[in-house]
Every structure is written in C-alpha cells, then in structure tokens.
C-alpha cells in the first residue's frame, strides 16, 4: 500500500501523457486544446462553488488522476470524458474535506463572516487602488479585442434593467442571432477579458 501511495506521489504529467489526455477529451475531434481548457475551467468553477480554498490546484489534481488512469490502463470506460472527470472531481472534493490542511471554508462558520467583514474592510481600504488597476487592465484588454467583439461587450452590458434588456434585444437583432446565442457569445468575450485582466493585474 505504501509503495502504491509512493508511486502516486512520484507520478508526474509527461508530454506524452498530456497529449493522450487531450485526445481523450477531444473524443476524436481535434479541438486544439479547447476541450482541455473548458474542462479545467469547469473543474475550477466546481471546486470554487464548493468553497474550496485552492480550486485551481484541485482541478489540476483531478486532471492528473485522469491522466494517470489513462496512462496505466490505456483507456477509460465511461459515458463521456466529462462524466468521468466529474466523478473524479467528486472524489477529490471529498478527500479535500477530510484533509485538515485543505479544508474548505464552511458556509455558516463565524470565521466566514469575519472574513467577509475583513474583505469589506480591505476592499474599502484598497478599493481605489484595486479599481484603478482593474480599470487600467480592462482598458488595455478591451483594446486587444477585435472591434466587433468590443462593440458587442459594450452594447451588451450598457444600461440598467430595462434599458439593458432592450439593448440586448437590439444587439441580437442586429447580429441576426437569438438572445441565447448572444448571451453565450458575450459570456465568452467576457471570459477572455477576465482572463486577460487577471494576467494583467498580476503583472502590475
């Protein structure tokens, strides 16, 4: 048992194994790594919704376990790669709850409330600085967007309540797409912006 655990700890993701993981996630249609990125994003979001302190690490741990399974057994029998990733993610989450050093923040813990208060206080103290950095980075990232995407993101989020809804209807009509398709498109552009801003803010 100790040898198995040691073997697991010594395991690391090699390029060949990573490529096999990409192929498995693609399901036969080369997505250029897009499926991997989407899966990782869903894993991060899942662990984040569970209030795990290190959602990105847990997401990587999940994908490492899937990769190791692929390397050891050559194939994985499952309804779909997404279903299998979810199953592994559940196990990883349960283990994280049992591990004291990786315990997630409980929702109704008093500590949470103090963290929130600390967050609010911290936010008030550094609000101006954070806002300036965020604005600078967002301006920069907006400039890197294609003009049509920049136009979409501005028109999609401009206005309040009814005005915003009307704007979105008009925008969908002008693009000749449904509101749902517009929401998805705007969402993707916003995700790109968020990712860009996150990298920019770290660099500042």
């Amino acid at each position: 048992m100790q040898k198995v655990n040691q073997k697991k700890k010594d395991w690391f993701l090699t390029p060949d194994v990573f490529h096999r993981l990409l192929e498995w996630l693609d399901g036969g249609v080369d997505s250029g790594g897009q499926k991997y990125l989407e899966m990782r994003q869903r894993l991060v979001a899942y662990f984040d919704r569970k209030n795990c302190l290190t959602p990105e690490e847990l997401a990587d741990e999940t994908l490492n376990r899937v990769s190791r399974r692929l390397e050891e057994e050559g194939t994985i029998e499952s309804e779909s790669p997404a279903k299998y990733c979810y199953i592994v993610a559940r196990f990883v989450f349960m283990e994280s709850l049992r591990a004291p050093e990786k315990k997630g923040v409980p929702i109704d813990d008093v500590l949470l409330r103090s963290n929130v208060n600390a967050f609010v206080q911290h936010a008030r103290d550094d609000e101006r600085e954070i806002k300036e950095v965020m604005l600078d980075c967002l301006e920069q990232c907006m400039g890197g967007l294609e003009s049509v995407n920049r136009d979409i993101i501005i028109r999609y989020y401009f206005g309040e309540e009814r005005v915003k809804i009307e704007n979105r209807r008009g925008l969908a009509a002008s693009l000749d797409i449904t509101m749902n398709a517009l929401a998805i498109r705007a969402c993707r552009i916003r995700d790109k912006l968020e990712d860009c801003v996150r990298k920019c803010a770290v660099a500042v």
Partner: protein
Amino acid sequence: MNQQTYGYQAITAYLLGALPAEESERFDELSFTDDAFAAQLQAAEKDLVDAYVNGELTGSQLDQFNSHYLASPLRREKIEFARALQIVAKPDYFTETAEPQKDAAPADDEKPDRTISGLLSNLFAIPNLSLKWGFAAVSLIFAIFAGWLLFENSLLPNQVDNAQEQGSELQPHTSEPLNEVANQRMANAEKEKELARVSDGNNLYGEEPRSDRLPTDESDHGGRRIDEQKQPQQPSVPKKEPPKPSQVTIASFVLTPQLRSSGQIQTLPIPAKTGWVDLRLELEPTDQSVFRAALANQPGGRVIWHSGAVKAKGVGENRSLNLRLPARLLKSDQTYTLEVSGNGEIFSNYSFRAVVK
C-alpha cells in the same frame, strides 16, 4: 412559470448555495456533462454578479450573496471585474460621446461625436499602449516642428525683404554671379538717377536692389525673365533704386485655388505701366501657416520667380497668402501657375492668364 424561468431561478439559487443537496448535486453533474447547461450557468453567474454590482439584489438574495458568494476569492475577483466593466462598457468611455440617459436606449446606429474635440479625446482615449506611445511620439515631433516654425517666423520679416534677392539662389540655372551684378549697378548709378527723375512711374523695381530685378531695357516693353540675364549686358537701363511711393503703381488681384475639374483660369488685366502685381491667394483649409510660392510659366512649368517664406494671413477658413510680383515678369497673353507649398508638400496651384493692356 415556464421551464426557462424555473431553470434561471434554480440556477441562481444553486449559485447562491440555496438549493437542496440532491438538486445541487444534479446541477454539479450537469455543469460537466451538459454543454448547454454549463453555458447557461456561466451566463447566469455573470448576470447575478452584475445585478449585485448594480445594487439590484435585495432581501434574502442579497444576504445569500454576501454570505455565500463573496466567500470565495475567485468570485470576489469577478465582482471587481464586473465593477470595472460597468464603467468601461459605456459608449462614451472610449468615444467621449454625451452622457447616456438612464431611460433612453441608445439607437443601434448611434455614432460617437465627431467634432474636433471629440476626435482629439478619442485619440487619447485609445487604450492600446502601443498607440499611446505612437501618438506621444507624433506629438513630440509636432512640438519640435512647432518650435522650429516659431523660429522661422521670427526670421520672416528679414526673409520677406530679401526674398527677391534670394530667389535666384534657388534657381541654379538662372542665377547670375553677384560680382557681375554689383559691377553693373555701380556702372549705371548715375544714369539711373537721371532716368528716375525723368521717367516717373517707369521704375519697375522694388524697394531694394534684388538679383531678379536686374536692369532691363525699357525698349523691351516689359523686361526679361531671370534666366535671360545670365550673360553680362550693356548697362542700357537705369540702376534700380527704391521707388518713391508716388512712383509705384500696383495692380492687385485675388486668386482662388485651381479646381481640377475646371478648365477655366482667371485672367488678370494688368495696366501697362504697372510696377508691381499684388496677389492675394485664398488658401484651402490647412494647418500650415508658412508657405513658399513659385511662379512658373505654362506650358513648360519653368519657374521664373520664387518667394521666400511667407506667413498666411487671416484665421480659420478665411486665410490667404499675400505675394508681390514684379509686373515685368508677366507677359501679355501668357499663362502662369503659382504653386504654393509648405513643409515640402504642395498645397495649391493658382493658374492665371496675364493680359497687359
């Protein structure tokens, strides 16, 4: 309650941690296995965050948001991003249009303000860093150029006075050795004084002796062009001297820029005894303030006269350039073109036909 609305409310409750465990687990799985649900979940989360930023959440939803959603650093980052996006995602943020009204939905074909101030603001609102540096570099170049222009402007009075003298320097094929000119002037000094007393009004030259106003033979009925004065000539005409105001006759005209589509050119009726021809050239809109003019005969385009640096007069769209030419340069029934340039760029051409009566 239709399925979509129920789905949205359930998703919002799921995001706020308010769903029962079994339902929450079902949504967990859907967030992986159902692409459409995953997309809907992402969009709903963004709408929820925007609603919080806009202060639209109230009651239990707001409490749940504060207690559950804000517990995560990653989700708090989304809040900050949404706040910044609300500021930036305004039509006038990058284009400096008028402030949008809260109750008015902007038209789909709404265009940003295109006034000069708006465009200038647009330039400096462009977020691209490389463009910012580019515009800064261009601004610096313009500042240096403006300083040079101011320096040139300070020298203009002297330059204008010496423009005729320096004209031949710019025409390497038509200039005459200065020594030769000086000798001729000296040799003709006395004769010129006598003729100046006798032939009042026939003094065709400017206030100062200039190289392009070499002594002409009055029997030539108008004088010679600069290029004809290469060879030394017999001093058959009086030496130049500054005319007395009463002796100088000036014909003034206003010229407009030559239109490409127009085949007509202006005709300038010049009285025979005219000493100087004053031309006011109406300028096309340009930011240039200092110009140079070159007179060429047509056809052929041979330059026969060249001005120095001349500063435009007037403001806005009513700017003009004032030039003074020796009337003797203009032959009757001859077509000429005045080419106005500045900073190495040709701005306008003014064509006219001289008719000496």
